[in-house]
């Protein structure tokens, strides 16, 4: 008996040891790769980041007077009255760190593999995206971030010190981009890869981000010295900012297929079959924005919004309503934010400028925004340049980006008999019209306060495209001064100045996460706010 038992045990042991390689070596992951080139991570990180900024800040589109809710849907009260909890828009925080982790990989892997250009892009994009988090949450985890389980409770770092490091990181990124032996393979650089001069454009983008971060600090008198030093560094570097036509935007090659359209199109546009998405129905135009565009004879109203009563096909939207501004047949209607009085069929959905096509690029910072930043900096005397010319170029670029064309009907006839002006001419006619009528919100000379004019027109250009920057300006300068707060009963009269830290941070990183006072969304300022 013993013999048999022993031989069984020995047999088993031999089997266990003997087949170690073949028997156990079956768990190489067949479903997902465990190592990839930095470029392959960069493509997705850029695309996802652009989508994140375009879709996760939808609440700022509501707060900044661009959007409202349709009357068709029962909307949670906390979305209407600013009385939100820590769970409100948690994804702004959580998703952005997720995206940043990918850029962190690009930076680190770029460094390890000697791909300096990717490393530089990683640094620049991290700095830019981190600034969006600071602008939303103030103090955030920064130095401790992206360490996996090595630092499982990342500490929250002072927002001002982060901002200063972001500028330093941008400088370091620019240095890498300048000196990299070769630029990134265009197939991975879905931002500037096809431009022919991606090196210059990446550096310009980095400088523009720097300018945006410095301008955010404009109302802090104590920062003047720092700002002038950093402006001097930008000037000394010499490449300059994103100029006309130099939009910082991505397009990996969107096609009309599930999940493969432009990310804003996926979220707020139309299905592959052209049927409107849920968000396209839930979010409608804001009365305030429509009134402003119309009062200023601004053709862009037709590009940010579509007339009521029209079908979802963007091709139809213009054809149905080529009436000039002031024509009673034009049919743009919005709800106020907080009032859901009018249902879908009576309100304007998103227009054909921001939903141009499923394959339109997804912007980070448009040339128009860059020019508005430069116009403000010039007006403040930070940089040299003609503020008025920069302002006008910014407005023209806004029309260009939207491809906002003006149609003049020659007779009471359909569109084919119309005169069509190019976006640039349309913009010029708009500026001229403002000058002719002396519109304070359009005409440089008529405007009593040029900064106010620049910010008002910047607001008009950033609609849906970069609502976070519009919110930044509002919190920094209180402009545009008449942006209406929610009319929902009990909402109060103050637009929130920040989001609360996510509930998950309190759940899993409670010791590090700052405890905010009640009503923090109204009172707890971002560090650069006056």
């Amino acid at each position, binding site marked *: *008996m013993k013999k*048999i038992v022993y031989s*069984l*045990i020995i*047999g088993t042991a031999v089997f*266990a040891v003997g*087949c170690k390689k073949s*028997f*156990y070596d*079956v*768990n190489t*992951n067949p*479903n*997902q790769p*465990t190592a*990839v080139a930095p470029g392959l*991570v960069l*493509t*997705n990180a850029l*695309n996802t980041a652009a989508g994140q900024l375009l879709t996760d800040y939808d609440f700022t589109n509501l707060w900044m007077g661009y959007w409202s809710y349709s*009357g*068709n849907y029962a909307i949670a009260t906390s979305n209407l009255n600013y009385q939100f*909890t820590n769970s409100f828009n948690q994804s702004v925080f*959580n998703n952005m*760190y*997720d995206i940043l*982790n990918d850029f962190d*990989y690009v930076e680190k892997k770029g460094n390890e593999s000697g791909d300096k250009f990717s490393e530089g892009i990683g640094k620049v994009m991290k700095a830019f995206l981190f600034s969006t988090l600071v602008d939303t949450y103030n103090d*955030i*985890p920064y130095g401790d971030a992206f*360490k*996996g*389980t090595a630092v*499982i*409770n990342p500490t929250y770092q002072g927002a001002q010190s982060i901002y200063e490091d972001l500028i330093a990181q941008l400088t370091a990124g620019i240095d890498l981009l300048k000196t990299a032996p070769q630029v990134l393979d265009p*197939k*991975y650089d*879905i931002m500037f890869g096809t431009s022919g001069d991606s090196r210059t454009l990446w550096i310009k983008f980095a400088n523009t981000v720097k300018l945006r971060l410095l301008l955010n600090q404009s109302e802090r008198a104590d920062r003047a010295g720092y700002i002038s030093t950093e402006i001097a560094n930008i000037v000394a570097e010499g490449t300059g900012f994103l100029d006309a036509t130099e939009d910082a935007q991505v397009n*990996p*090659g*969107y*096609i009309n*297929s*599930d*999940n493969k359209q432009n990310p804003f199109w*996926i979220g707020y546009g139309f299905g*592959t*079959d052209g*049927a*409107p998405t*849920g968000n396209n129905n839930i979010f409608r135009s804001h009365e305030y924005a429509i009134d402003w565009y119309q009062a200023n004879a601004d053709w862009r109203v037709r590009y940010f919004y579509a007339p009521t009563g029209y079908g979802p096909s963007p091709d139809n939207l213009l054809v149905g309503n080529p009436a000039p501004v002031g024509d009673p047949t034009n049919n743009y209607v919005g709800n106020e934010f907080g*009032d859901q009085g009018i*249902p879908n*069929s*009576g309100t304007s959905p998103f227009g054909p400028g921001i939903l141009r096509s499923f394959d339109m690029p997804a912007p980070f910072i448009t040339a128009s925004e860059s020019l508005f930043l430069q116009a403000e900096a010039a007006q403040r005397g930070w940089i040299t340049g003609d503020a008025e010319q920069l302002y006008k170029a910014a407005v023209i670029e806004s029309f260009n980006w939207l491809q906002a064309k003006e149609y003049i009907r020659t007779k009471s006839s359909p569109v084919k008999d119309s005169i069509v002006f190019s976006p640039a001419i349309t913009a010029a006619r708009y500026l001229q019209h403002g000058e002719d009528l002396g519109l304070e919100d359009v005409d440089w000379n008529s405007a009593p306060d040029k900064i106010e004019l620049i910010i008002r027109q910047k607001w008009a250009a950033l609609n849906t495209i970069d609502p976070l920057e519009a919110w930044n300006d509002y919190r920094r300068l209180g402009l545009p001064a008449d942006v209406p707060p929610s009319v929902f009963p009990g909402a109060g009269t103050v637009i929130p100045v920040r989001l609360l830290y*996510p509930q*998950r941070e309190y759940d*899993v*990183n409670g010791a*590090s996460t700052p405890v905010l006072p009640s009503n923090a969304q109204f009172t707890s300022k971002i560090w650069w706010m006056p």
Partner: protein
Amino acid sequence: MRKILSLLTVLLLFAALAFSQTRLVTGRVTNERGEPIPFATVKVKGGKGGVAADAEGNFRVQAKTGDVLVLSATGAINKEVEVGTESVVNVSLVKTNEELTSVVVTALGVKKQSRETGFATAVVGTKELNQGKVTNIATGLAAKVSGLQINLVNNGVDPATRITLRGNRSILGNNQALLVLDGVPVSIGYINSINPNDVDNVTVLKGATASALYGSDASNGVIIITTKKGGKRPVIKVSNTTSFESISYLPKLQTGFGSYGGESYSAPGGVLIDPLAAPYFPYENQSYGPAYNGATVPLGGPVRFYRADGSYYDSTLMVKYSAKPNEKLNFFDVGVTMQNDISFATGDDNSSFYISMQDVNVKGVVPGDKARRTGARINGMRNYGRFRVDYGLGYTKKTTDQVGGEYSQGRPVYWNVINTPMHVPLTSFKDINQPFSDVNGYFNAYYPNPYWAVNNSRNKGNNDDLLGNITMQLKVLDWLNLTGRLGYTGTYYDQKNTTAGVTFADWAIADPLSAGNIPSSLQFVNPSSFDLSIKQSKILGDLFASINKDLSRDLNLKVLVGTSVTKQKARALAISSNSLFIPDFYNTSAVIGQPVVLEEEAQRNDLGAYADVTFGYRDFLFLHATARNDWTSVLDPSNRSFFYPSVDAAFVFTDAIKALSNGKFLSYGKIRAAYSEVGQVSLPGQGVYINTFGAYNLENIFNVGFGFPFGGTGGYTLDNNYKNPAIRPERTVEKEIGIELGFLNNRINFQAAYFDARTTDQTLPVQISAATGYSGALLNTGAMSNKGYELDLKVSPIVRTRGGLRWDVGANFSYIKNEVLSVYPGLDEVSLGNSVYAIVGKPYPSVKVTDWVRDDQGHVIVDKVTGYPTLDPTLKNFGNTNPTIRLGLNTSVSYKGLTFSAVADYRAGNVILNAVGSALDFGGISWHSAQTNRQRFVFPNSVVDDGTGKLVPNTSTITADGNWRFWANTYNQASSVYVTSAAFWKLREMALSYDLPKEIFSHVNWIKGAQFGLFGRNLLMFRPKENFWTDPEFNENNGNAIGRTTENQTPPTRIVGFNVTLTF
């Protein structure tokens, strides 16, 4: 060998005759039908000690002529036989029903006497299992075994089940029992694929000790299903069971108010309109409108009717403005289940054969839902000298056809039923092609006609299961057996979900009532389809040697040494096509753009080596120890091998202590104790459609970026879960003690067990701060304690008369205290999903939801202006969601051929989140929302700021609204209002059957018996008054996060039916 033995016997016989000395007497214990009774005890009257027969009933005992052998066996009446001069004494025992010390099948299919086991086991026989004519074995086990908890997720046509033994051990890993079918471990999901009529018995090994030999999958206990074998005589059974299922309870609904949903609450000037003064809105889904008054009102808007010549007219449907409370109930069908069975069993001395076929055809309560299960099984055995082979092959085909989401928001059917005001004649919209019922004309502007989804959105599944096993045994020596076993399970699953496209009429898109109706929002909907195909297989090989040897007259040794190899594989392919361009043609080739595809595969190999040793001393003291080492492919080589032992002891003190043996009152008494450690590879599955068996948890991975690739541009993103190469198996240590007592000749049986299990080193995918770059990390952390006791009492019979009346009763009770001891340093809780959490220091699992801001005494603080409570941003714990107390009662009364049986159970000690309540309050048809007749009111038990900052009881601050804004927009935001006690009493089974007297068939030779039966299941349910929503046994799924129900679960049902069985 046998010859030598016979020779020996002869020699011994001579010796006995010559010296009148003790000699060896052999024999076989059988039942009346000649089938062996295993493990009978054979004693020489007046002598000490005794011997046990083996599993085949064979015994050998030293006796002399004139001795009286006392043969006793579980479930049989004791018999005394005098030994004559013969050397072979075959005894047949008469069966009784005292089954306390029955035979149990323990690990690896090894039969043991119950008296030998040092751990808790329970056996449910085929009769008990099938008395309620269940179609699903899990349902048939509910309430019948202490420690075993069965939860049916819902009452769909093929519901998933959750089966746990003694609560939960793993915080986020698997807690369901392992299923072992005829010796082969298979996934617990197969329990739904096995024909309950094929089951000979179900043995439940409750603790980890019992299962140490099955390897790490068995740490949650084991359910061993042994299927039927043929007897000596050929028997053909044919039966039909037909049952009817109907909704038994709807949530409590209001019948006073019709449609209004806050339309125009803010007029253009911003002036608030009092919702109570609002007019009736004929197209609204919410019921916050005027009180019913019996007037004739329009329902929906004008609907366009076309004449044959193309001209048209508009017509509006008019209905009576009064509640039609039965419409919701009548929406649901009476489900019909038709079950047909045929089986044939036969055998002889050296073989047995069993073949069966079953067809279960289910029509569900949700209109259009159906399922069908067709299966066949062949079992057989053949003895050939020292060689024996057992085989079994089962094939089950299961098809399901269930309603999917609707075209607008993908909501479940029940949601759309809820969002139908009470005056709406819902069932009159059944024909979705009628102008008032179709996508254009249906009254409800915001939610589609529920019949649309019934007709046009279907999820169809097709599942083929193949389960096979072969066992070969070679009796090398009398005391040495070699066994080899091969088991295979294969599943081939296909699913296709289709949702039809919709085109709306222009007049509907124009939104004639300016309601913002679905047609104006959607414009059109293209058809969509989803295809999934999964192939999964598991091959298991076992090779072991078993030894059974009497070391001396008093000492018996049983040893089992073996090894087991498991290979698992799975593969899935999924294709979703969200927009197709040909109506009613659901093929991916017609996709607009590109389909979304997913490919997954996984495999896992395991090797185990084990040893199991039992010492039996004089058949009353048993010491048992097991040891097992596992090697698994899914862990890092440094952690791949893990070892775990167990020991247990059983002591039958009534046999050991002279004073107690042959006691008239106490007839049987045993105490037992066990200690075990089990390693459990409880790694999270990584697949979307397949469980990757825990593989691929060691290395960080990159997922394809959303939308990628774009043409030739690929994109990857780091996975959000931080992987961990150092992950080790979880470890459960379980201690158990128990006592088993039999009184009055085992007429009264009592068992009690106490267990204490602690699982440490859990493999937890804990949530971590997003700032780490990841949302979760897999760590060896966290501990859970699981203690409890189980009591079983059986009185069998309580009454037995000469006239043939017999009455049995049984009760089982379980108490479980499941507590989370730790999660991770600095982390107090982990979410299990569905609002359910594991919270340190609290019972597992607990429900945590939003609640109102309250004062120290728990009074709700209301706003001094609006009178509304405000939502507390911090979630609050409302307690345990797993019942801590479970009581099962069963009884049977028989008189001649007539048998009545019933099973009831009680569960308590837990709460449930009836999230469906929120949907009902949103819709405004809830009884809840009409409690104050839609008037403003003082929020009960509230406090309010008296103006100075002091909180005083609120007596006069009334809510700013008592209508939709309060109930549908404020009140239903706090899920705490839907948390209630989950206690219930259920009358689970009641059955009456009649066996026609055998005499009737005495003159016909082709029929041997007939049985007719009536039965009912879930006939009654009693819940605390506060729970007027649904069955608290339901869950969102069969995962660990039990304790929440939503509109995804249709209301509870009741089943009644009849059965006819003919035996040939």
